[in-house]
Structure formats: C-alpha cells, structure tokens
C-alpha cells in the first residue's frame, strides 16, 4: 500500500500533535496543575505507523499507557486527554476513575486496560478468537513495552494466538527500559522480535523512529491477519526519551549523554528529514502545523480546566453492569 503525500503529511501531523500535547502535560505537571503524567515522547512514530495500517474504527485495539499518538489517530481528542490528566468527569476512558493514559474508547473499539502490564494481551487474543468465531475480517492490535514481555501473561496470550492462528498483531514498543531496568535484564535474545521463533508466529523488528517503515511492516502483518494467516509480533525499536513518568528521576540510572545521544533519533526529527527530503514538508507547512497544534493544545487545556470534577458519590458505581448509567 503506497501512502499518498497527504496521508504521509497527516501522519507527521499526528506525531507532532501528540508530541505537543505530551510536552504540555509535562508543563502542567511542573506547574502543579496535574498530579501525574506518563509520556509517549520518542514512541510516536511506531504508534502512528501502526495506527495507519489499521482500518480505524473497524479493527480493535488493546493499547498501553504510552500510546497517546496511537489514541489520537483513533480519534481520541486532545481535550479528552487533558480531561483525563486532570481527573475530570467527562474524561471518556473512566470518568476519572483511572489514572491518566489508561485508555478506553468504546466508540473507537479501544478496550479498557489496567495498569497491570501485559494483561491487555490476552484480551486481544480473546477478541481475535471472537473475530475468528464470527468469521469477520477484523484484526486486533495489542501493544506493550519490551519489559512487559517478561510476563508469563504475554507469553500465554501470544502462544494461544499462534496455536489458534488468530488475527492479532502484538506490537512491542521497545524503548530499552522498564522504568530503570535495561532490556538486557529482561531477555537473553538480542531482539524482542526473536521471541516469536519459540512461539510459532512471524517476528519482525523494525526501526521505530521511521513511521513509514513501521507502517510498511504493519501493513503486511494486517493483511496476513485479515486474510486468516494468523498473528505477527512486531518489535519497534526506539528509546524512551523522558523519565518513566513524572514520579521518576532517570538520572539515578542512566547518563545524560546516553539520553542526548538517542535524541538524535527522535522520531519527529527523523521523519521531518524524510518528508523534507521528499519535498513534502516545507518550513511554512511545518509552521502552520505547529501553530495549529499550539492552538489545539491551548484550547484543550482551557476546556479541561473549566470542566467539572466528578461528584464524590459517583465513585459508588458502576460496580456491576446493572448500575451503568448513561447520562
């Protein structure tokens, strides 16, 4: 599938928007306006590349907490992100029950995930099983960090998908760290994609900074899955540019030089160069994007700041499906 120029620019735009929202979250945190942020900076290309290979709104997604860019591609709105950061009532993932970045968006087929890493993977396998039982041609994407592939949970989910040849794509966003623990302490194989060979499914490693390379890898995997040829494991290699979260101090476990070195492969930079090289992204176009992003982010923050908190008593429900209220 060749991408139109327009789509390629749009993909860059999504990355940019995600970045600016994410950066604003860090600012809000420094200002004491929000209590917590967990960042996707450095991981946008992988997420956008994956999203654009899906039939968005048709296929299903079981994401994890760093997937802001992925979520935006699926139709999650900047103001919804800001609402969630502030724990506001209107926040669509949980009505303020979950921490920020714990996504759920029914209208976009994004299932709710917890903070317990890797648990979303067996849900994805179950969705894949249901798709297959119903003889539909949807696919489901599950994403997680490389550290989370150490969980038996993940292994079981992938194994099941492979045994039953389900239309699931597992995206490992390998940002080299699980909080402070480097990838070498999680696995004895050089690449998370190598995990696939013990499980009997395709394993693909791709440069997670190159949104088009990621898109290419996903397009192939999606096509195979959609046509009944089973699951694929895709590892996108990247680097977590920020601390693990706003609670973390990454200077305790990695050098500033290391981080600076990796910033050279910042996906925003890498893909800007690609689009500039291809004559698509001009200075004025970029400027336009930046100011549009700024405006959207500003508006989102303003909206969210004025939005009400949930009432205390709303915490009482819905424990059971019978208590679900629609208002």
């Amino acid at each position: 599938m060749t991408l139109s120029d327009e789509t390629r620019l749009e993909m860059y735009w999504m990355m940019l928007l995600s970045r600016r929202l994410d950066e604003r979250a860090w600012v809000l945190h420094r200002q004491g306006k929000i209590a917590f942020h967990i960042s996707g900076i450095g991981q946008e290309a992988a997420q956008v590349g994956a999203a654009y290979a899906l039939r968005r709104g048709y296929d299903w997604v079981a994401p994890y907490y760093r997937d802001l860019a992925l979520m935006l591609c699926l139709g999650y709105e900047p103001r919804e992100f800001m609402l969630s950061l502030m724990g506001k009532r209107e926040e669509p993932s949980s009505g303020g029950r979950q921490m920020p970045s714990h996504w759920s968006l029914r209208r976009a087929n994004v299932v709710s995930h917890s903070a317990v890493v890797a648990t979303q993977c067996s849900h994805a396998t179950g969705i894949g099983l249901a798709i297959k039982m119903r003889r539909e041609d949807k696919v489901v994407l599950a994403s997680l960090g490389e550290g989370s592939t150490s969980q038996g949970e993940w292994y079981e989910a992938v194994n099941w998908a492979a045994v039953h040849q389900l239309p699931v794509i597992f995206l490992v966003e390998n940002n080299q760290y699980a909080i402070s623990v480097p990838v070498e302490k999680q696995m004895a194989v050089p690449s998370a994609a190598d995990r696939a060979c013990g499980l009997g499914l395709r394993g693909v490693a791709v440069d997670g900074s190159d949104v088009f390379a990621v898109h290419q890898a996903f397009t192939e995997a999606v096509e195979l899955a959609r046509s009944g040829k089973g699951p694929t494991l895709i590892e996108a290699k990247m680097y977590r540019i920020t601390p693990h979260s706003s609670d973390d101090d990454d200077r305790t476990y990695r050098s500033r030089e290391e981080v600076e070195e990796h910033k050279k492969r910042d996906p925003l930079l890498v893909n800007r160069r690609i689009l500039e090289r291809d004559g698509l992204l001009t200075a004025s176009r970029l400027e336009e994007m930046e100011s549009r992003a700024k405006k959207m982010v500003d508006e989102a923050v303003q909206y969210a700041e004025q939005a009400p908190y949930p009432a205390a008593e709303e915490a009482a429900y819905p424990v059971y499906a019978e208590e679900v209220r629609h208002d």
Partner: protein
Amino acid sequence: MTEITLVEAIRQAMDEELARDERVFIVGEDVGKRGGVFRATVGLFEKYGEERVIDSPLAELSIVGVGIGAALYGMRPICEIQFADFIYPAFNQIVSEAAKMCYRSNGEWTVPMVIRAPYGGGIGGGLYHSQSVEAFFAHVPGLKVVIPSNPYDAKGLLKSAVRDPNPVIFLEPKKGYRLIRGEVPQDEEILVPIGPARVSRQGSDLSLFAYGMMHYYALQAAQKAAEEGIDVEVVDLRTLYPVDRETILTSVRKTGKALIVHEDNLSGGYGAEVAATIAEGAFTDLDAPVRRLCGPDVPAVPFSHPMQEWFMPNPQKILQAIRELAAF
C-alpha cells in the same frame, strides 16, 4: 419430574444455553473430546463443534484472559477451570481485569462471563484437588460468586449466570457431582435468580448457614437434630457475593442463634463475613455467640484418609455443634 445428578444439571444448563444463544461458548482444559475430567461437558463437543467447545492450552490465566477478551467483543464465554485449586494462575485476570472492567471504564465495557470450577474436599484429592476458594472471590467487588447445593439450583443458577452481564464465579461442590441427586423438570426452562439466599428448612431454635456440599450435610444434621427436639432453620447461602444480608439477618432475628458451616479454612473464610454481618445487624436479637464450624487452619485437605476425615466437617460434627449451640 426426573431425578438427575448435580453434574448432569450443570451439563444440561450449558447445553441449553449453547443452544439458545450462539454467543455462548465453552473453553477450558479437556472440555472437548474428553467431555471434561468430571464429564460436565460430555456430548457438547460433538453437538456444537470445536469452535464452541474449545480445548484450550494448559494455561488458566489465559483461559480467563481470553474469555474476558471474547466477552468484551460480545461473546458469552463459559470458562472451565479444571479444579478450583488451579484457579490461582488466573487470579490476576479475575481480580484485576474481569472484576474491575465495568467500574474502571465507567460502564463502557462489561464482562459477561462465567468461570466454572469444581471445588471442595472429601474425595481423596489431597492438598491440590480439594480446595475451597470462595473466600478469595467473595471479597472482590465486581464479581458475583455462586455455589449451588442441589441439581435444581445448579441448573437454574448456571443458566442465570450465563445470562448475567457480569463475571460470575460458579463453584461446584465436586463431591456432590454424582452423590447429590434431585428432581429437575425437563420440560420447562429453569432460571434461579442470582442474589437471594434460600431458607431450605424452616426452624425456630437456631439458624444454620451453609452452601454447597456443606448445605447437603447441614440438612442431614438438621434432620437428626429434629429427632432430638432441636428445630433448626437451614439457610442455603448459594449466592455468596454480593452478600444477601437480608435473608441472613431475617433468619437470625427469628431464631436468635447462628451456626455457620463451611469446609474452607476458618480464619478469613466466608463465615467471617456472615458472622460479622450478624454481629452488626442482629446484635439485639442474639441469644448466643455466633458459632463457626469450618475447616481447620491448615493449608488444605490432606490425602491420607484419616487426615482427610479430620479436616472435613460432616453431618456428625455439625450435629454436635447444633447441640452445643442449642444448649447455650
């Protein structure tokens, strides 16, 4: 009416629900060709095919996790855990995911699923084929916990569980699978509501609370007690969670005395919640200490026969406790 066994009632419930709703499917170890190690799914693989009666990998965590995913997509999975003792690998999926999904998504996502597991001792199964696990789950908001004590309830409750929009932990007293028989009409649909406990024997001297196999024994003990002139009210708790406090309190307010029986370990067992409910809600009606007769606080039921018998409550032990409490 036809008399059938407990396990046959369970099989019938699944058969009927599979036939009624094509979103329903069964998944677990050996549920397919083998028809389940307790034969609870026998014939269903042949009738509904391998896509609806799925022999899973040997992996409880993903039996539940995959079930949750399918439920999110709109299916109605019945997950079988071969023995309740092997439910712990799935504990995270049950407690973190199934139970909290509705709440955490503010109702956007729900998990209509049933997790069936045979539980309980007295069958020579030793430490790892005899455990009672209800107390772990009857503490988790978002779950429903159901334990039938007879074929009628087993069928009616399981069918309700399959239709329930929430995750239901359905624990089956395996010692009673073939031992407990009862009349179940075969020509009408039976649905027993999840929620209410049931007064299975009216009485005035004391209230005896039990469920599953122990309820079966409780009725026997109450019968014997009646011969001695002690009039025991027996309550089959059957939906353990959410707790039916009303039925519990109504009975104790009437009799003034409470005896709770389960085979699970005493401390932190389900009986503690029943006792606490009574201690708070029926204080002024109580004529005696609230008494629990439960499995001892040792890790699980031992294999060797004399030790197994030492562990398990039985009608004699229950009768003895009835006598003592009645005499207070």
